[in-house]
């Protein structure tokens, strides 16, 4: 893996690190309020490393939704990683263990900054961005578990507005062909249509149907 690609990945994601840290911290605060301790929250950030699924797990446990509901919701939210995982497969080489470990750095943001217009990813960029996010997400969770409420609400700083902006900024250069524009329009329409009717996670998975415009005989 070229070191330059890794550095490019680190650089591409730096703008999101304050938000990753702050949301890691607020996840820990939310977890504690839901009866999930700081150690469990930190282990979860280090292993699951998927913000929305982690928040869903602890909030469902915290509101008495039960273990099964929490697990199903979280895995539905992460189901999109099955599709992303297959799409990045050609770029991942080396031993089984290495592929297993490196693939854990796949998150929406690291994939989004590394994906090329033809659908392939630059693995080094993905790993650089993913490792950077992992560090800030996990240390943010530790900080939240230790400092707790002192951290305050990250949304006050508008950090929740940073994530859609990142995805929009990464979507724009993808829209170079008519097929890509059609796929984006279908994906967005499906998400809008399903949000009110399905559990979180389903709209995103269903939006991958926008891929069908890429069907070639």
């Amino acid at each position, binding site marked *: 893996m070229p070191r330059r690609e890794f550095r490019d990945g680190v650089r591409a994601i730096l703008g999101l690190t304050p938000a990753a840290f702050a949301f890691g911290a607020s996840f820990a605060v939310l977890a504690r309020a839901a009866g999930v301790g700081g150690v469990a929250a930190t282990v979860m950030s280090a292993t699951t490393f998927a913000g929305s699924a982690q928040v869903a*797990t602890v909030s469902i446990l915290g509101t008495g939704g039960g273990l099964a509901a929490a697990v199903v919701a979280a895995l539905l939210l992460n189901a999109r990683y099955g599709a992303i995982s297959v799409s990045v497969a050609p770029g991942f080489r080396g031993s089984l263990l290495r592929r297993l470990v490196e693939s854990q750095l796949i998150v929406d943001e690291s994939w989004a900054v590394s994906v090329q217009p033809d*659908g392939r990813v630059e693995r080094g960029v993905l790993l650089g961005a993913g490792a950077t996010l992992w560090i800030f997400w996990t240390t943010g969770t530790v900080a939240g578990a230790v400092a707790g409420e002192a951290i305050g609400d990250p949304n006050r700083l508008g950090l929740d507005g940073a994530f859609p902006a990142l*995805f*929009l900024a990464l979507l724009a250069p993808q829209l170079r062909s008519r097929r890509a524009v059609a796929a984006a329009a279908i994906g967005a329409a499906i998400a809008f249509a399903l949000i009110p009717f399905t559990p*979180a996670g389903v709209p995103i998975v269903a939006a991958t149907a926008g891929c069908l415009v890429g069907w070639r005989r």
Partner: protein
Amino acid sequence: MSSAWTAVAIVGVGTIALKSTGPVLLGGRELPARLMGLLSVLAPALLAALVVTQAFASGRHLVLDPRAAGLGAAAVAVLLRAPLLAVIVIAAAATALVRAL
């Protein structure tokens, strides 16, 4: 084991499996051309859906809250070809500003 730790374990193992499926089972291999055709437009479809859910979803509700202002500011910044970092900072600032009003 408490239900918290059980959830952490099951969600963790399930997510690790989901993320590793491709690289572990298919790592380094070229995918069939037809599948690559579909996957070449996975990014726009999925990124567009992420924009929508991250900006307009609150649980099962469609909402118009300060994140929409952040997204609007981000769209202008993208059209003006601002660098990625600037787009993110502008969006966060606009979101915070509208929330503070």
